[in-house]
């Protein structure tokens, strides 16, 4: 593969998007966890819960700042680096981004300031409302972004307009309730909840291992384990929903994830392990689990799932059909308002395949002049590189089951074993802190790399979507982002670690005094002497 402006722009998008998503999942989940903690505080009036709210809220704030900052890049780089994409699908894709701003981002950004600055200015209930508005805003944000992204995966409710040379909305309802978008939303948001739960669990476990802030840590583990358990189940179940919706919208992505080179008789087997070989078109040392793939993909025992070879030959047919659409389009455009109804009819018939004709642009300017070899080559291009998808998917799923097991265990210990956690389990929880991020990044990798060679599946090839920029410009900004983001990352991690090491520092005297009285009430004896030195009043 030659390395040109398209590859460089993709690299930049991947780098900035994946960096942005280091902060997003924690924002999504921690906003809700903090709001839950504050709810408990307002209901019980126990100062320890206010301290927890403030402590986890502070970490949320550090993370939130970078999430917002790096999100600006995302909103703008479609226009900067992908201007033809912006022109071609802006009529549909732009709307959810703008609505995200109106409905969600304003909400979270306006109230997040009040969350930190409003403790003394607001009543308890008003402050709690603010906390929930921040959480709702963050989560709504994800909804609109995933409606936009879901449309790139499954472009429903839109049609090509020959007069404007772009896709335009025909059915906004279909764009909103795109089942791919909805499945992605719940899956992504759950992933965020798991991330925050694992984070809270891990940091609390670290405190318990050092015998610090025991009361705060135990309570935090209890909340995180309960919330994390529900989220871990939902992230796996709803991920399965994503797989199901991919069966009818993105067959090639599904086949590539599966390393399913040839169609299999229904119900297809699931390849649990193997080494996909793109050139030989087979998966070496494959371990198959019968029936499972058919069940996941089609929820039936009789519907077949097409393999890569079959999809490739379908792509070839669609390219030929797309060339007819392209030819009709050229005639319509030339004639403008006076176009021949026959041409229009010919275009309408083949317009769904227009994007496939654009795949030929990589080889020839006018798709109508393409040779047989070029068409075969373009059809071959519709197959993404299989092995990274195959492995990324399997690691993500394994981690998903790992989260369920971990959360189940901690939930059990918290609920039935008097919040008594063995040290090896606490060590494990600390080491698990990075894993939800790995799973989330792999998930996005599967979603976006698996969509290649398209930016909008079946509609617009990635190679056509880029801006007419020079390599120098994109290289400069990429270098700028890398340097800049690396520095910010170091600073962010430094601050996070500093405040985690420092532990809760607000309302300490009041909370500790209450904690001692509370424990006396529970045990009926004076236990201040039994407490760790640092929490002693």
């Amino acid at each position, binding site marked *: 593969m030659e390395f040109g402006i398209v590859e460089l722009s993709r690299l930049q998008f991947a780098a900035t998007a994946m960096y942005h998503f280091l902060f997003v999942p924690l924002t999504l989940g921690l906003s809700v966890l903090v709001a839950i903690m504050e709810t408990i505080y307002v209901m019980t009036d126990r100062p320890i819960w206010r301290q927890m709210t*403030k402590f986890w809220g502070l970490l949320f*704030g*550090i993370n939130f*700042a*970078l999430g*917002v*900052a*790096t999100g*600006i*890049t995302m*909103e*703008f780089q*479609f*226009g*900067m680096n992908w*201007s*033809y994409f*912006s*022109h071609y699908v*802006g*009529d*549909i894709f*732009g*709307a959810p*981004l*703008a*609505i995200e*701003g*109106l*409905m969600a*981002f*304003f909400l979270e*950004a*306006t109230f*997040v*300031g*009040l969350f*930190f*600055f*409003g403790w003394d*200015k607001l009543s308890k209930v008003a402050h709690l409302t603010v906390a929930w508005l921040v959480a709702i805003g963050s989560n709504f944000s994800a909804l609109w972004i995933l409606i936009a992204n879901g449309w790139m995966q499954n472009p429903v409710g839109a049609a090509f*307009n020959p*007069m*404007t*040379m772009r896709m335009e*909305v*025909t059915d*906004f309802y279909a764009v909103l309730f795109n089942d791919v978008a909805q499945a992605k939303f719940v899956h992504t948001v759950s992933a965020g909840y798991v991330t925050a739960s694992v984070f809270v669990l891990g940091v609390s476990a670290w405190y318990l291992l050092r015998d610090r802030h025991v009361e705060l840590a135990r309570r935090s583990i209890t909340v995180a384990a309960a919330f994390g358990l529900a989220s871990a189940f939902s992230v796996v179940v709803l991920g399965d929903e994503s797989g199901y919706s991919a069966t009818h919208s993105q067959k090639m992505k599904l086949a590539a994830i599966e390393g399913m080179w040839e169609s299999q008789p229904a119900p297809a087997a699931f390849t649990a392990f193997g080494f996909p070989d793109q050139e030989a078109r087979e998966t070496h040392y494959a371990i198959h689990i019968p029936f499972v793939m058919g069940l996941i993909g089609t929820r039936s025992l009789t519907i077949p799932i097409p393999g890569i070879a079959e999809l490739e030959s379908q792509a070839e047919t669609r390219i030929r059909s797309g060339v007819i659409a392209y030819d009709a389009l050229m005639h319509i*455009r030339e004639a*403008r308002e006076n176009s021949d109804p026959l041409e229009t009819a010919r275009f309408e018939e083949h317009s769904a395949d227009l994007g496939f004709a654009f795949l030929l642009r990589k080889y020839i300017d006018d798709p109508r002049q393409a040779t047989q070899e070029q068409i075969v080559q373009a059809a071959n291009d519709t197959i993404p590189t299989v092995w990274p998808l195959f492995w990324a998917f399997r690691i993500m799923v394994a981690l998903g089951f790992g989260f369920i097991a971990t959360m189940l265990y901690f939930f059990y210990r918290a609920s039935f074993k008097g919040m008594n956690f063995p040290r090896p389990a606490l060590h494990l929880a600390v080491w698990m802190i990075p894993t939800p991020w790995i799973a989330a990044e792999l998930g996005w990798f599967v979603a976006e790399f698996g969509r290649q060679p398209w930016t909008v599946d079946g509609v617009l090839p990635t190679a056509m979507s880029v*801006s*007419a*920029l020079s390599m120098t410009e994109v290289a*400069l*900004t990429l270098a*700028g982002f890398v340097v800049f983001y690396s520095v*910010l990352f170091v600073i*962010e991690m430094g601050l996070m670690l500093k*405040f985690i090491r420092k532990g809760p520092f*607000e309302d300490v005297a009041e909370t500790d005094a209450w904690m001692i009285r509370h424990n006396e009430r529970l045990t009926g004896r004076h236990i201040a002497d039994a407490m760790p030195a640092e929490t002693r009043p």
Partner: protein
Amino acid sequence: MILHTLIDYDILRLIWWGLLGVLLIGFALTDGFDLGVGALLPFVAKTDTERRIAINTVGPVWEGNQVWFILGGGAIFAAWPPLYAVSFSGFYLAMFVVLAALIVRPVAFKFRSKRDDVRWRTSWDWALFASGAIPALLFGVAVGNVIQGVPFHFTDDLHTIYEGAWYAKFIGLLDPFSLLAGIVSLSMLVMHGGAWLTLKAEGKVRDRARQLGSMAALVAVATYALAGVWMAVGIEGFRIVGDYITTGPSNPLHFEVEKTASWLSAYSDRPWIAVAPIMGIAGALLTFAGLRAGREVSTLLYSKMAILGVISSVGLTMFPFIMPSSSDPQSSLTVWNSSSSHLTLFIMLVVTVIFMPIILAYTAWVYKVLWGKVTEADVTDDNSHSVY
């Protein structure tokens, strides 16, 4: 769906042209004082406590304010996709500089006071200065370029092509007229930041803000007037030639456009638009007087009036052009040929009509909760670590 045909396509385009202005002005009115405070920071506040006072006057609100900018980007994408595609890729490196500034700013706000180290804090203070002053300047530079036309053209497929090498594209933005426009915008936002600090701060910070803000107001008036004269004698305008339909498909290539002697002929065609520049100059002069006299609420309102006048004067003068092309006038973007589809404009209008009042209501509530001056005690109180 036929509901959207209730409002004609050209009316929707006109409304969205107005809303684009509302968003840009909303951004300048709210985030404008944040940028202005950033640009003033090293000069109005010398000690750490003074700096924290200045920073905390915008601390709780800058995040919400910055959304105006992001929403502006999103709304341009949704309602004016060709404008989004052409301007963001055309001003590529300048956009990157603005992005870099807007990324540093949130981080600087959040992180500055999280360590007691002097060097740490001073570095972030300069970051706040740069991330306030540079975007404030560049927004004006961008407007200056748009007024003169930007060198781009469309291919038949509507790919955007920019004329010139990459360095020429970047350095070329900084021509004398555009730099003048940059100074207008910088001084205007510094004036706005000064008016804000006068309202929200006390003592030395407030005194210095009054002084610097009033100087900035005078600079704004002078440079804005100079830019007007320059436009009258030295900057070409654009106009659409012949008949055109305002409800046609959004294809810029369907229009015939030519250059004219000056944009200012708009003032003889539509004399009422003179209201905008008059508001701009009068607002800035009243802000100057208010800052001198030490009035607070009214001064901020006058400053807002100045911004409203200056920004809307640009849009009204250029109407119906949004982004003319200097090298290929035919490719120019106008209100009538570069919007989204009829249906998208309608849906976005419905969403805006529902949510904009809600946003304004809760933003007003937040400002009300935070009403009052930021005092020394506010930032030095040990138990309020959430303060920046």
